[in-house]
């Protein structure tokens, strides 16, 4: 389909704006725009159709099952959209006086209290904008903490398992720390022997996702804690997989000092095609003085912003963080109350059910029950039929499912990482399992069906190598090389349904 720029016609517009009858404001000639930006010129009817057509070509959790491992694609309740659009939230300026933003402050304070209880750590900052920023914030807290104790120059290393999300090592570098990798043992736990050799007085901390990206709770967690605490190091909990353990186990209780939450995973902030997210952190008392400012605090019946933290690391984002995300997540948690535990229980039940249905056909690298997600390997299909995990993923699209996360974690060859979440019905899980089994059969009988998949999407398999080798990352107007079809093709029925 055409780009919005290709639909433009000079002289068309959608906007109408107030144009007061006043003398013009003055801009020095040297600072005045010399040639206008080539923004779309389009009428409102065409504008709405254009973006509706783009929506039709996008698959969300509203469209269908989205078992993207480690992303926790659960249903996003619509009541959350209603409340976040209340004018008292939506049209509130972040620098409004405190006496005129008591509702917002109270909501944030209440969310802090809830998050503290969920992970068993007392002090919360809602400010980080996403999980990876929560990670960086946590590492900057470690820096500030050790610098304050005179150990800043000594403790330079952060230990990370080889199953970690890529954000962990990237955050370590951005925080100015050195990375130390630790291996995974044959049961999918952190290899304790390897770990013991890598933790010492040079260690600032550990970053651990638990359950791990293998979907397994680390059975040696108590020993891991002992090792780090004996070394005087801190422990950081990556909360990407918190959906597995709410109300069941708390990172603060098993030794972690810093936790980040992914509000867009566990607590149902819609992911918006790539964001927004929310990455609050919770910490133990000894780290509270270093948290970002402002803190949201309660004084009797009123709430205020407290900038009085002399040891703060500063600010990691503007204002108090992504407030609209807080409204949705607060609403989500209040819908559950203490039954958050049931949310995690069903997430784990759904994952184990799918694992049970698939593990005889696809290889399960670890013969254990899983938590909220699990990893399969497609190496058998590759060995026997020359069909890759990428082919399986693309073929799933023809069955109207979003593929799982693939080729991650890195330690499992041809990995398929599947996270169904708690909100799916058994019928949906069965339909997905049936599709996976059917695809495995197809791999043997008609492998070309997989290799040429997808067949029913608006485009066939895309050339990612070409995109990276000759990057075209913006429309170039008259200078833009026309691809083969710029004509606006009639949309097939399937695309209109958005599948």
């Amino acid at each position, binding site marked *: 389909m055409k780009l919005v720029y290709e639909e433009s016609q000079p002289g068309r517009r959608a906007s109408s704006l107030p144009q007061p009858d006043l003398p013009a404001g*003055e801009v020095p000639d040297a600072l005045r725009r010399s040639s206008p930006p080539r923004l779309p010129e389009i009428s409102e009817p065409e504008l709405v159709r254009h*973006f509706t057509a783009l929506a039709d070509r996008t698959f969300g959790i509203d469209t269908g099952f989205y078992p993207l491992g480690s992303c926790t694609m659960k249903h996003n309740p619509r009541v959350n959209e209603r409340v976040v659009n209340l004018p008292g939230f939506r049209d509130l300026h972040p620098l409004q006086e405190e006496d005129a933003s008591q509702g917002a402050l109270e909501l944030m304070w209440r969310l802090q209290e809830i998050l503290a209880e969920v992970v068993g750590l007392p002090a919360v900052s809602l400010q980080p904008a996403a999980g990876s920023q929560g990670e960086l914030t946590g590492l900057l807290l470690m820096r500030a903490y050790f610098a304050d104790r005179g150990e800043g120059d000594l403790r330079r290393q952060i230990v990370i398992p080889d199953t970690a999300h890529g954000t962990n090592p990237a955050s370590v570098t951005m925080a100015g720390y050195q990375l130390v990798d630790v291996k995974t043992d044959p049961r999918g736990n952190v290899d304790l022997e390897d770990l013991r050799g890598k933790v010492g007085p040079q260690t600032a901390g550990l970053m651990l996702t638990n359950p791990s990206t293998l979907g397994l709770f680390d059975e040696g967690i108590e020993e891991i804690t002992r090792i780090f605490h004996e070394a005087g190091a801190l422990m950081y909990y990556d909360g990407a997989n918190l959906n597995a353990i709410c109300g069941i186990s708390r990172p603060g209780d098993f030794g972690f000092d810093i936790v980040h939450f992914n509000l867009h995973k566990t607590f149902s902030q819609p992911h918006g095609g790539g964001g927004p997210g929310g990455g609050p952190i919770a910490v133990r008392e000894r780290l509270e003085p270093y948290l970002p400012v402002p803190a949201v605090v309660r004084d009797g019946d009123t709430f205020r912003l407290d900038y009085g933290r002399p040891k703060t690391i500063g600010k990691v984002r503007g204002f108090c963080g992504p407030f609209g995300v807080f409204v949705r997540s607060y609403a989500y948690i209040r819908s559950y109350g203490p039954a958050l535990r049931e949310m995690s229980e069903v997430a784990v039940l759904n994952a184990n059910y799918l694992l049970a249905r698939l593990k005889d056909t696809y290889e399960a690298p670890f013969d254990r029950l899983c938590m909220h997600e699990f990893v399969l390997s497609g190496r058998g299909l590759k060995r026997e039929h020359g069909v890759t995990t990428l082919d399986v993923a693309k073929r799933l699209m023809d069955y109207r499912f979003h593929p799982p996360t693939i080729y*991650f974690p890195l330690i499992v060859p041809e990995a398929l990482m599947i996270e169904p979440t708690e909100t799916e019905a*058994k019928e949906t899980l069965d339909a997905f399992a049936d599709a996976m089994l059917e695809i495995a059969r197809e791999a043997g009988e008609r492998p070309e069906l997989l290799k040429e998949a997808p067949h029913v999407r608006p485009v066939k398999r895309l050339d990612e190598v070409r995109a990276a080798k000759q990057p075209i990352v913006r429309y170039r107007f008259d200078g833009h090389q026309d691809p083969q079809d710029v004509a606006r093709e009639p949309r097939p029925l399937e695309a209109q349904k958005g599948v």
Partner: protein
Amino acid sequence: MSFLSLTERDREQMLETIGVGSIDELFEQIPEGVRLGRALDLEPALSEPELVAHLTELASRNVDTGREVSFLGAGIYDHYVPAVVDAVLARGEFLTAYTPYQPEMSQGVLQAIFEYQTAICELTSMDVSNASGYDGTTVAADACYLARQATGRSTVVLAEALNPQVRQVVKTYAPGFGLDVVEVPHRDGTTDPDELRAAAGDAACVIFQQPNFFGCLEPAPDLAAAANDAGALPVAHVDPVSLGVLEAPGAYGCSIAIGEGQSAGNFQSYGGPHYGFFAARSEFIRRMPGRISGETVDSDGKRGFVLTLQTREQHIRREKATSNITTNQTLLALAGLVHLSWLGPQGLRELGETCLALSRYAKDRLADAGLELVFPDKATFKEFAVRVGRPAKSAIGDARAAGINPGYALGRDYAGLDDALLVAVTEKRTTAEIDRLIEVLAA
């Protein structure tokens, strides 16, 4: 609460398939010693009507810009958000999609990101834009990280007239990046190019804001030239809705253009979620932070879009990545694209001219009323600083009692400006509202 879909019968059948007797058995891999063993101490669940009532009560204790006439800006503005933005963002396909890792499932959002990148490049006259950063503060830190890697230099220079929160965020990130931060004071509301040049001698980049935090127009081409002279990358922090009337950073020699996107398409929302934009010249394309959508073809040669240049990113490059960002602000950036498409070049220019004219009207009336502008000789865009002849805080209190929020107390961030208000005038304000503002401030 009804977000779960399993019946009791489903659960029994599923447990049987798994081969366990109860849900508790699934959790036996968690060592006994680290299980909670009690219910979470949370308030009881609310039904949907109760939930809406509770949140409506909380919202009612906020005074939003529908309940008072707002001249409050300082980085977040009460601009009009067109209805088409609401309509597009309410589409569940956009709202509830994840990052487009599987491009064939996500052509719509990938094309929207490509169109957004084009709009940002056009606004800023840059060659490449990413899919968005968190907000207008973190993109400044991203720019410093890029500049550090690109130049090998270990200092960054910030204009003091750059938004204080942006400076604070850069200072928070800087130690991790191995960067020292130097600030160049403003001179009568703007930055002196010679002072900037002198400070930038061994700097990786220089960040200034146009219009700056005081609303004043910086001599931006001279500042960019000063940075270039010193071998530092010039970075302009710009307001997207100003770029119909103000010159684009790419046209005056900047290497990178960044900014807070809220003015284009986002509600104020107590500070977020919004989006930060990040655009640069093509030479920095492989050093960009964050996601980038690129054009390619499918196996039939038909145009399509994918996330591209991913070898920059954390999931491939891990500790050597150009950034740790994964989740960005795609939905808010989409809102920006829709707003900018709604405006078009003509609408964007009109919006800028309206802000200019209304703020000129406000400045003229304030002067007529005997109030003194803090920087009377400086041109401004939609925001300006005025002395109110008493502590700004008390002027704010009095004005708010009359239903007007008159602006931001500059003394919170700048010494010697305790009697100064930063007043923002968007296209939503009327001359009648401005007259009322003058009335309460002059009283």
